């Protein structure tokens, strides 16, 4: 079948094929291309990608080697919670100035690392390269190596020059590479069990991890590390001894799981703790992987009591949300992992899209959504506004930059990003999720946006 001729919204010719409708010709949009210069892109840089993957390591200092802005605009902006340290919340920069640009910033970087180590004695110091570090050619690897020798503290270079790629996923991978090259496999666990796992791609935003960690523990698996939510660097160092990686955010972290499988022979399974059905499936899959009859039995009990605990707790919300439409426009993973959760609320996902999706991501979206769902790639601010105006979903799920675009158009919005307040994972998380979605969709405010005062 030919691709749909009518563009989904008015846009540049070259952008038209970045949007499609499932079941009508192309069900996968053109993707993973550089954004058009001169658009208000919703994407970010490679540095941003690396930073969000590593930042949840709580006992570490995250030092940004560049002019002040790269640190100043990104410190403490991810709502990843910690049960222990709060070093990761600090905004540290080498604050490169004019002289450093001319003479190089390596000496300043070295001295800064030494200072930070003295002040905080962190588990590790991650040193992020920015565009400037790349352009002036600072050898951050060499500086980190020397600083590590002098301090005895892990000093880990992250080669995340911001302009490297159009896709911040490259930054996720660079963050993962830093862990693979410098952390994982550098420490042996004191004890091992047959049920050791890593929880990969879980960043404990709003405490999501704590919504399913107790379930895993009750099952009888032993969590060596989470990569990277609420983690310490020494825990990640032992990750190579796990028998299984479970991958929650597949967008950022499948890469890591695949590399660990190759290097250490650790198999991985994809899990999803958003939504009841997905939580149940994920728990069963983990239990099935280990094949231990007692664990399987325990797991069934956990599922039974988990479901019983939340039964009827979402009824009221579901009643109001029945048949309401939702548009997802997210970084990647949530574009497919949330679809079932919304369907469980009785809602209809009418659009799903990502800013940085690659072909395999869109394959997953295509599998997850119903026929007729609009699938968009890298929609810029203007396109997003047009999509919202034309199709008027009852809810947009996206991030902080998109929030006010939607609200200004009178489209309800719910945060499912770095700065959300409630944890949504696991059984109880689903109740919070239902409650927050309802609070957005059913808000009386949006009945008041149109006025008949003047008849317009």
């Amino acid at each position, binding site marked *: 079948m030919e691709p749909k001729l009518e563009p989904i919204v008015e846009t540049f010719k070259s952008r038209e094929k970045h949007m499609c409708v499932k079941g009508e010709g192309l069900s996968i949009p053109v993707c993973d291309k550089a954004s058009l*210069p001169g658009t208000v*892109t919703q994407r970010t840089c490679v540095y941003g990608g690396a930073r969000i993957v590593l930042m949840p390591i709580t006992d570490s200092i995250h030092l940004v080697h*560049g002019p002040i802005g790269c640190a*100043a605009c990104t410190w403490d902006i991810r709502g990843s919670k910690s049960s222990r340290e709060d070093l990761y919340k600090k905004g540290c920069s*080498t*604050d490169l100035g004019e002289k450093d640009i001319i003479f190089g910033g390596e000496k300043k970087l070295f001295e800064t690392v030494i200072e930070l180590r003295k002040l905080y004695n962190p588990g590790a110091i991650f040193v992020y390269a920015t565009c*400037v570090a790349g352009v002036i050619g600072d050898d951050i690897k060499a500086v980190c190596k020397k600083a590590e020798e002098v301090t005895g503290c892990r000093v880990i270079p992250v080669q995340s020059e911001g*302009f490297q790629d159009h896709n911040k996923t490259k930054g996720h991978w660079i963050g993962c590479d830093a862990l693979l090259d410098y952390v994982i496999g550098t420490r042996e666990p004191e004890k091992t069990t047959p049920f050791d796992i890593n929880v990969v791609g879980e960043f404990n935003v709003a405490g999501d991890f704590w919504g399913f960690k107790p379930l895993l523990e009750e099952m009888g698996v032993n969590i060596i590390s989470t990569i990277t939510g609420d983690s310490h660097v020494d825990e990640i160092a032992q990750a190579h001894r796990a028998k299984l990686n479970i991958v929650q955010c597949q967008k950022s972290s499948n890469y890591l799981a695949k590399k660990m499988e190759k290097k250490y022979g650790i198999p991985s399974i994809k899990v999803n703790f958003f939504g009841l059905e997905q939580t149940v499936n994920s728990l069963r899959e983990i239990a099935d992987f280990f094949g231990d009859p007692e664990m399987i039995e325990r797991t069934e009990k956990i599922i039974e009591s988990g479901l019983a605990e939340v039964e009827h707790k979402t009824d009221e919300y579901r009643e109001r949300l029945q048949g309401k439409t939702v548009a997802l426009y997210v970084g990647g993973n949530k574009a497919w992992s949330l679809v079932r959760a919304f369907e469980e609320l009785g809602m209809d996902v009418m659009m799903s899209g990502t800013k940085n999706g690659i072909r395999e991501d869109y394959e997953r979206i295509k599998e997850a959504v119903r026929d007729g769902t609009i699938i968009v790639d890298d929609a810029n601010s203007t396109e997003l506004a047009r999509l919202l105006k034309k199709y008027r979903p009852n809810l947009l799920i996206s991030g902080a930059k998109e929030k006010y675009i939607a609200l200004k158009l*009178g489209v309800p919005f719910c945060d499912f990003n770095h700065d959300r307040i409630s944890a949504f994972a696991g059984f109880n998380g689903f109740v919070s999720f239902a409650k927050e979605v309802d609070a957005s969709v059913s808000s009386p405010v949006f009945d008041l946006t149109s006025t008949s005062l003047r008849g317009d």
Partner: protein
Amino acid sequence: MSCVNLIEKERNAIINPLKTCQPLGAMYAVTGIRRAVPLVHGSQGCSTFVRYSLSRHFREPSEIAVTSLHEDAAVFGGRRNLIEGLQNVAIRLNPSLIGVITTCSSEIIGDDIIGFIKTAKKELAEKIGEEKTEKIKIVPINTPSFVETHLKGYDNAVKALIDHIAEPSEPNEKINIIPGMVNPGDIREIKHILGLMDIEGIVLTDISDPFDSPLRPSATELKPYYPKGGTTVEEIVDSANSTGTISLTKYAGSGAVSLEKKYNVPVELGPIPIGVQNTDQFLRNLKKLTGQDVTDDILDERGLLIDSMADLSSRYLHDRTVAIYGDPEITAGMARFVGELGMVPQLVLTGASNKEFVPDIGKVAKETGVEIDTMVGGDLRQMEVYLKDNPVDLLIGSSDGRLIAKEAEIPLVRIGFPVYDRVGYHRHPIVGYNGGIHLIDLITNTVLENYYEHQHWKLQQ
């Protein structure tokens, strides 16, 4: 003893910054122009993280385009990205003005911005015609991120706008106001004062509506959508004909000085009208430039501020110690105001390294008769350490100090940028007499809540 005790930061590392880089200031300034688009010539993060910061503070959309520089541009230059980017913005968004904002990478690569703009205009004229092309002003704004702070970026942007656009014709009897990086509430207050004085103003630039705009879906049906308000390009053109320019901050006076040099528009630089004496000074400057006298309405507003100061300051605020942190102009103004309230500005800290700051604080020290600890080019870690040995009764500054405040168990009065953990702060002024009233209410309520028992008899009168 009254003097400034300058405390140096004895390390390289910046830990919890009190400043950001130049492009943010320029993006803020261009947003204050009607139907204008800031176009950042740099990496995607350079626009995206700033949009995030601005949206978080103002709770508004922040529309900033970017040329999306990638690795090939770092090697071969960003020529094609900028030329294409300019045309895409021009064709799709039909703006009145595009502010081309450079970044660290495009500055270091050495892109010939002016040359690229020329080429883009030529190509654009072939596509949409000369006339339409000429209508779109394209202003190059150099903002190397590795020099000074966001305030310098703002200053550079305002100067670039003036230098490229202002044109002398007939005198207009207006006053140019360069507000500095303040909130919509502050600009509205300044416009209110001008209104009471019967003075017409040109605000360079006016973010008050773009960063605090109504939710009216019918109004946003415009294609393409721009927020209401902002300074018009015509007003910027006309700024060369004004009676005078007042920059509310000496840290963003380059544009004003440029107008004076080129077109003999007299200039007054600072201070920001926070508190009684600074607002008095602002009114004197207005009077001096325009000849308009201060009206009864304004004297009444002044009287209301003095009235609430008389009601509250000696009873609740006197001798209470304060640490103030943030941008230099705002912290210096705030220090003077807390001095007027009988409080002690014990520590004043700014992230900028501008030398003018120390004498400003010296003046406040002299007036208040206290010794003021001062940090220039500082960061929040410096304040955190200081407070351990030198506690204060109150912190005044942005939300970025919230964790320090909590840890040190010192109440925080929020002002400046960014404020993201409370609401409404962008709407209320801290400048002018009305701003003073708002501030004294904020400060006193915070003191009452933290330093008095709920049943205390002092709360009753």
